């Protein structure tokens, strides 16, 4: 093969780009993460909470931002855009234009002095214009990189040559008005496109009156809800009061062929529901109404979330789309006109605020990038892919992920991102490690017995220095026990100060360092690295936060703030004096994989692992590969399932790195990440397999809907999979009725099965195309052809399929020849004669999940599907390390989603397999066996399943007995200390937070009382 370059360019620094970058960097490839705005984070950084768990969006995202910022293999190119991509798969030359920021990132410490002096106010994009920022700004407080940018279009100096305040106020000489930006060329083996979406611009729909200050977009409302937003989380009207009645209008810029936006945007129904619920949490008196066409709650946990909103929280869902917002010319009040659900006319209702649920549209910059990359777009404006290759563009070596490919929510985006990373990494697997270098540090010096602690007290420009009396704190610190040297810095974090810290350690022979400055969240990793450069163990470091905890919160009480700073420094020194060096352990492991389940997900996962050069065993309990897809005959893009399955099976079976065991099941599993022993048994198979990672891809089954709609009672009632074979054989049924949600979205199975609407639409179209004279009636509760599959729904309607809406409380009654149904929209009863009744039955979790879950120590959700580690950001992982999941084992889904997840799971798994050894963290928790009484509480609180109880025989002076005792697996432990806190006997020590260390801090606090 021709030249391969072990680097990847990832375009777009949203959650997709971030995930791809982390996966690739962790697999030993060099990553250039290119983002056009000033910070990575994307749209997710603007969200308040995420559905359906109502987790804080920023809280889950910001650790990923931090991970990117300090990853040695990731080079972050923000405020930059790709201008050309030349070359071919394995060897691309990518030109990147870096825009001028006018701030030298090496000197800027993000102290913010310049901001207070900047006189220019600009609507804040991060808050969707809800308040103002300055012309020199940080996009948002958690922005990465933490470097200010001057808005060249607004800056007085750059536009008019006046002001220059920022340069004058900067104490670190970081402002450079002469910055011209630059164009650089990077050489990469692959490119991933993930520049995301643009919220639909609703100003073009004048009838929705976005010009009225109390009509807001859902993004603006999201910022209103956020405590970091313009109103600190209090939803506020233009007159300063708080609304009592809010309406959401769905499908603004989606499902609107009249304006060329045909597709469904996939996420709006859920975010509107979320926004309504969160707003009601803020104000329990609030009335909320969501006007919708269908409520598309199709993802995992969504239907349950929707039902909770509707039935428990009292969010009103009205199945009607107002054609505009009316503004009373006299009172300026907002009202909506809508059709009543019982078909009895039209009502006009007043609301205090109207939120427009704007859709996801391909961004202008994405369209540009698509042209630059030379990849094809589909007719909706998204990057063209195939169902069985959802992250591959039409140009080899260039991959796509996230909302650039189709509108989708965060977990699907994250899965795509890992999937795209997997493809890039497979292509470049031979080049892993070729462009990344491991940093070398000097040999660590012996700490010795004498405590010699150095203290640096930082002024943070005026951030700390103007409030806290820093020289006073410095003098105070000199007399503290164990302190050998104290010094003051203007910016402890500036690059010259860091060198100074390293010199100070050497010169004064220090063995512990306390920096009194800001938060460890952003700065601890950097200071720890400085210690390593000075030959000290990184754990000999302690941060005292005298900015957030002192100068910022007590800025009007300077004396008290100083006293608190002295207290904080005293407490930190007391702990630092007790710190001990901690070391990571390297553990050997088995770098092969195990995939359970030979469906489309399992096969793709196995191939993606095998393509990276690792051995993988694929086990399938049935006698043939193919899984659930074997029971269907066509895909919704018109191709036959065989066209996809046959080559895939052939590749799996012939791949040198894959061992396939069919008719086989996993019966026993021992060990943990890196070293699993799996016992596989079956027809002619009885093997023990050693592997380092495992992927659960056990799929789902189509429910045989016994007891629903007379299924099993009359012969002419079939499920969708049966229908597909009937169509293939040719059938003459004249009147065909579909009933959706047959056995789903009920008390027994409260979830939505996601795929059935699309499958039913595909089959209805086939039947109509087969014989246009056929009468087809589709009885549904909500049509959930999300994303691009909305086109199928439109097409079915165009072909004359009759859609009739039923409700759960008035289900259709099925007799042998006819169906009685009540159409909720027309408020009428119908009798429909049928020749064939097709039931859309949900996918259900196989019974084997319940035996498999405990083997892997992984949880199932309430519907018996496997429960991932985090529903948003870790969709293909378990909390148990080294175990992954993909496909319908996680929840019902379509083929492209299962394939994307399969690659994602493989990507995540290969970040482990591609290392030379497993590395524990330094501050793991350890057990003192003599103190352990085997109560097992640690095993209940550990989120990672690191402690395990092992049987031991205890011999005391007179009694010998058998009991269990805890052992903590060092490769699994994350050092969170939950077990140490829970342990009743003090047997467990969290090594960086020992009881003596914590007690010393408490005592040091007490000394100041």
């Amino acid at each position: 093969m021709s030249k391969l370059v072990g680097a990847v360019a990832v375009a777009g620094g949203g959650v997709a780009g971030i995930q791809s970058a982390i996966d690739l960097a962790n697999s030993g490839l060099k990553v250039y993460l290119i983002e056009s705005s000033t910070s990575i984070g994307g749209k997710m950084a603007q969200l308040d909470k995420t559905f359906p768990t109502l987790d804080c969006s920023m809280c889950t995202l910001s650790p990923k931002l931090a991970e990117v910022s300090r990853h040695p293999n990731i080079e972050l190119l923000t405020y930059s855009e790709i201008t050309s991509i030349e070359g071919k798969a394995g060897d691309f030359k990518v030109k990147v234009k870096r825009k001028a920021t006018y701030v030298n990132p090496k000197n800027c410490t993000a102290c913010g002095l310049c901001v207070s002096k900047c006189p220019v106010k600009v609507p804040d994009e991060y808050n969707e214009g809800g308040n103002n920022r300055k012309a020199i700004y940080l996009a948002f407080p958690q922005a990465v990189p933490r470097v200010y940018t001057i808005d060249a279009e607004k800056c007085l100096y750059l536009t008019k040559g006046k002001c220059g305040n920022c340069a004058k106020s900067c104490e670190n000489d970081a402002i450079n008005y002469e910055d011209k930006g630059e164009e650089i060329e990077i050489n990469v083996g692959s490119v991933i496109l993930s520049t995301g979406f643009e919220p639909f611009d609703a100003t073009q729909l004048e009838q929705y009156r976005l010009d009225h200050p109390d009509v807001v977009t859902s993004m603006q409302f999201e910022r209103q809800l956020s405590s970091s937003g313009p109103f600190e989380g209090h939803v506020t009207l233009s007159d300063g009061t708080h609304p009592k009645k809010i309406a959401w209008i769905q499908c603004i810029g989606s499902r609107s062929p009249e304006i060329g936006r045909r597709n469904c945007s996939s996420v709006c129904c859920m975010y509107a529901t979320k926004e309504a619920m969160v707003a009601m949490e803020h104000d329990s008196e609030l009335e909320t109404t969501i006007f919708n066409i269908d409520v598309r709650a199709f993802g995992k946990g969504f239907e349950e979330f929707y039902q909770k909103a509707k039935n428990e929280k009292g969010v009103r869902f009205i199945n009607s789309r107002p054609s505009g917002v009316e503004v009373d010319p006299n009172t300026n009040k907002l009202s909506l006109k809508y059709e009543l659900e019982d078909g009895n006319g039209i009502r006009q209702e007043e609301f205090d605020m109207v939120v427009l649920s704007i859709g996801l549209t391909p961004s202008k910059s994405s369209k540009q990038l698509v042209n630059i990359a030379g990849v094809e777009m589909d007719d909706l404006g998204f990057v063209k892919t195939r169902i069985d290759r959802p992250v591959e563009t039409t140009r080899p070596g260039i991959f796509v992920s996230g909302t650039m490919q189709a509108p989708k929510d965060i977990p699907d985006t994250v899965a795509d991102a890992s999937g795209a990373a997997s493809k890039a990494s497979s292509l470049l697997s031979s080049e892993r490690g070729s462009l990344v270098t491991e940093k070398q540090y000097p040999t660590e010096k012996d700490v010795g017995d004498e405590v010699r602690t150095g203290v640096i007290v930082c002024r943070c420009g005026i951030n700390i220095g103007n409030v806290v009396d820093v020289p006073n704190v410095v003098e105070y610190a000199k007399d503290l026990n164990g302190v050998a040297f104290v010094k003051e810095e203007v910016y402890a974090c500036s690059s010259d100060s860091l060198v100074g810290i390293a010199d100070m350690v050497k010169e004064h022979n220090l063995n512990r360092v306390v920096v009194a400055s800001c938060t460890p969240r952003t700065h601890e990793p950097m200071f720890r690295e400085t210690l390593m450069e000075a030959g000290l163990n990184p754990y000999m470091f302690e941060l005292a936060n005298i900015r957030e905890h002192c100068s910022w919160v007590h800025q009007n009480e300077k004396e008290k703030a100083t006293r608190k700073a002295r207290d904080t420094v005293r407490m930190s020194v007391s702990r630092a004096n007790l710190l001990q060096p901690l070391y990571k352990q390297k553990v050997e492991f088995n770098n092969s994989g195990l995939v359970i389940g030979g469906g489309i997900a399992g096969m793709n996962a196995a191939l993606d692992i095998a393509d990276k050069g690792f051995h993988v065993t694929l086990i399938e309990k049935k006698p043939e590969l193919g899984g659930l897809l074997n029971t269907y005959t066509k895909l919704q893009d018109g191709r036959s399932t065989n066209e996809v399955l046959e080559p895939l099976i052939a590749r799996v079976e012939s791949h040198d790195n894959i061992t396939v065991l069919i008719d086989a099941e996993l019966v026993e599993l021992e060990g943990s990440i890196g070293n699993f022993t799996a016992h596989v048994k079956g027809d002619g198979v009885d093997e023990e397999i050693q592997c380092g990672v495992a992927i659960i891809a056990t799929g789902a089954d189509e429910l045989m809907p016994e007891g629903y709609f007379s299924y099993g009672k009359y012969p002419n009632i079939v499920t969708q999979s049966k229908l597909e074979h009937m169509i293939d054989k040719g059938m003459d049924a004249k009147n065909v009725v579909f009933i959706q949600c047959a056995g789903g979205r009920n008390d027994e199975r409260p979830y939505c099965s996601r795929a059935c609407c699309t499958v039913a639409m595909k089959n209805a179209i086939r039947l109509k195309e087969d014989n246009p004279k056929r009468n087809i009636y589709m009885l549904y509760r909500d049509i959930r052809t999300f994303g691009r599959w909305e086109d199928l729904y439109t097409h079915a309607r165009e072909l004359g399929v009759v859609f009739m809406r039923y409700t759960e409380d008035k289900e259709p009654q099925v007799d042998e020849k006819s169906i009685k149904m009540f159409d909720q929209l027309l408020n009428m009863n119908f009798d429909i004669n049928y020749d064939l009744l097709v039931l859309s039955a949900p996918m259900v979790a196989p019974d084997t999940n319940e035996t498999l879950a405990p083997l892997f120590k992984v949880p199932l959700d309430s519907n018996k599907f496997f429960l991932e580690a985090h529903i948003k950001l870790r969709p293909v992982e378990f909390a148990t390390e080294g175990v992954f999941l993909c496909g319908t084992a996680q929840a019902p889904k379509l083929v492209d989603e299962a394939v994307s997840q399969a690659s994602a799971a493989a990507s995540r798994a290969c970040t482990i397999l591609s290392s030379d050894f497993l590395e524990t963290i330094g501050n793991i928790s350890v057990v003192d066996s003599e103190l352990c009484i085997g109560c097992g509480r640690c095993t209940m609180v550990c989120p990672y399943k690191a402690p395990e109880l092992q049987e031991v025989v205890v011999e005391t002076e007179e009694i010998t007995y058998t009991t269990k005792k805890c052992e903590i697996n060092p490769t699994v432990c994350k050092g969170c200390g939950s077990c140490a806190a829970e342990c009743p006997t003090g047997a467990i020590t969290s090594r960086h937070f020992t009881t003596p260390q914590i007690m010393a801090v408490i005592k040091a606090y007490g000394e100041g009382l």
Partner: protein
Amino acid sequence: MKTSPRNTIYQTNVYKTGSDDIWNCLTCNLCYDECPQGVDYPEFVKEERDGNVESADLVHKGVFTLLSDMMVDLDKSRTSLEEAGNKDSKVGYYPGCLDFQDMFFNVDADFSSIANSSMKLLDRMDLDPKRLQMKCCGHDQLWQGDRTTFDKLKEQNTKLIKESGIETLVTSCAECYRTLSQDYDLPIKVVHISQLLKDADLGIDSNVDVTYHDACRLGRHMGEYDAPRDSLTKAGANVTEMAHTKEKAWCCGVSSMMNCNDKSKALRKTRLDEAKKTGAKVMVTTCPKCLAHLTCMKNELESVEDYDFEIKDLTVFLADEMEGKKDE
């Protein structure tokens, strides 16, 4: 090396090298009871520990001790079970630190129910009691080697007791009982609730098979073996004795919130095995610490042995039986 009190005394008092064994001792008084010379080794241990509490191996990271320590400095601080009953009563009931145990133990035992049950039983005996809200009695501090804190708690509690106007102080906890009657100098009568219950007619005929676990503070420390047994028999329960009983009874291993480890677990294990052998449905005890630590082992997550009997405080057992009668 095998634990030897003699050895420890030698090392401490003769060779002056000190011995860790003063911290390993459970102060259960078993050796004192056996010693032909009447050497009060636990008392020796208590004196040796004084002033060295930092060396003590406290369970639950010393949180109970920390709470009581803070009570000394915070004048108005009291245990959280509020004053109840007849405020002019001459009979006071002191629940001790049951509320702390509810806060920090997670062993499937309801400690406050001991206080509620005690009040119900005292009511049934027409004693018209008042529930006192005081500070921690200081038992643990005294035995952990912090006499200074103990003395302060003692002083503050003594004042509270005097102000309360009661003439009899009833405790349900063996440790409180020992401490308030032996280590305090109270001008009033201190009794353990079993000493009242043994003669009381609660109108119960329970007929439940039980066994009684002697708490070291009530048994060997205070010599009260019969009252709890008599209370049970009087209520119609059938008491079967364990292999080690009364003077010879084995300890739960965690008196004074110290030494919860695999050695003391051996004692609990033996104790539960003995209780199992009696065939009793309920193992009754009179000390919340015995209750906590025996229950902890009985309910451990992946128990090697199954123990399918209940463990209850004497007062809870009797009050439950009494209320069960009422229900019928």
